[in-house]
């Protein structure tokens, strides 16, 4: 006879437990961990290249670069001066999960590291479901995309703590409305911190660097 068997289990329990372990490890080492998410081509790798070039002597940074195929992004980050860079080739998977990050962390020397950047696979849907043990998700959007993206991908914008609008130098050539994207993003997530910048011209990057430095300072002061 068939019977009803209550289970009451979280489907991503295994991922969430691994993510909790990662979070404990990074908190113990006082490392700020940022999970960078965006569509392909919004400028995650460019932002990290600029950040390495400007801040390598001020912040001790480690980076993971997730891609479906190729280690091109990781190579770019090493060329930009990244000392601790791990490629994660997902081999088809559309997102990073906590298991991949755990394995990558095992092979990284984290002593003295202050910031860990996890560059996720370019995708605004799937990475939103997988906690990687980060302090926060930072979502990038560029001015060559639609300013309604927050409305189209609400889950990702709801679960992110900050939004970076990149390629502000191209605003005059596109119909992207910066006030509208902010309004759309805040309608999904009223607490979202928003930064506007251009990796190409450098406009707005100082505020991003200052924010990173401030987060590192606050994490060190905690506990």
């Amino acid at each position, binding site marked *: *006879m*068939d*019977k*009803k*068997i*209550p*289970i*009451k*289990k*979280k*489907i*991503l*329990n*295994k*991922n969430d437990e691994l993510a909790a372990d990662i979070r404990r490890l990074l908190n113990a080492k006082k490392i700020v961990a940022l999970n960078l998410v965006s569509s392909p081509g919004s400028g995650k790798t460019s932002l990290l290249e600029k950040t390495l070039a400007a801040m390598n002597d001020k912040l001790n940074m480690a980076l993971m670069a997730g891609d479906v195929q190729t280690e091109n992004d990781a190579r770019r980050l090493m060329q930009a001066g990244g000392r601790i860079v791990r490629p994660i080739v997902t081999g088809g*998977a*559309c*997102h990073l*999960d906590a298991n991949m990050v755990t394995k990558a962390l095992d092979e990284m020397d984290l002593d003295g590291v202050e910031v860990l950047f996890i560059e996720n696979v370019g995708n605004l*849907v*799937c990475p*939103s*479901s*997988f906690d990687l043990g980060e302090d926060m998700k930072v979502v990038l959007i560029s001015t060559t995309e639609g300013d309604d993206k927050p*409305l189209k*991908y*609400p*889950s*990702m914008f*709801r679960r992110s703590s900050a939004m970076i609008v990149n390629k502000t130098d191209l605003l005059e050539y596109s119909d992207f409305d910066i006030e509208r994207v902010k309004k759309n993003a*805040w*309608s*999904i*997530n*009223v607490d979202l911190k928003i930064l506007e910048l251009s990796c190409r011209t450098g406009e707005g990057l100082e505020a991003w660097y200052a924010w990173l430095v401030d987060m590192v300072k606050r994490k060190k002061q905690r506990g």
Partner: protein
Amino acid sequence: MHELSIAREIIAIVQDEMNNLNLTKIEAVNIRLGALTGINADALSFGFEASVVDTNLDGAELIIEEVPIRGKCRSCGKDFEVAEFMFLCSHCSSTDLDVITGEELDIDHLVGS
């Protein structure tokens, strides 16, 4: 298509339970899926159907209860459904709210023997 990864996690959890509880046949797996998870129910069903073939769950049906997003307003204290992802109190228009449902991604129960 992260729904396929999710489908495989569901199958792994059910197989664990089958071992623990000595179950041999699963008719249905009932899950709760919140609207905030960004997981598409049709794609998940498709991924599940494709993944159970030739496993001990072959023939099991995935029954998905979709859970809407509900918020509770911190200003007026009322709760309401968050329609169209507009996180705004439908009573007093405050944006200061707690999400009370919509994050569910749980197996609720199995039907089997």
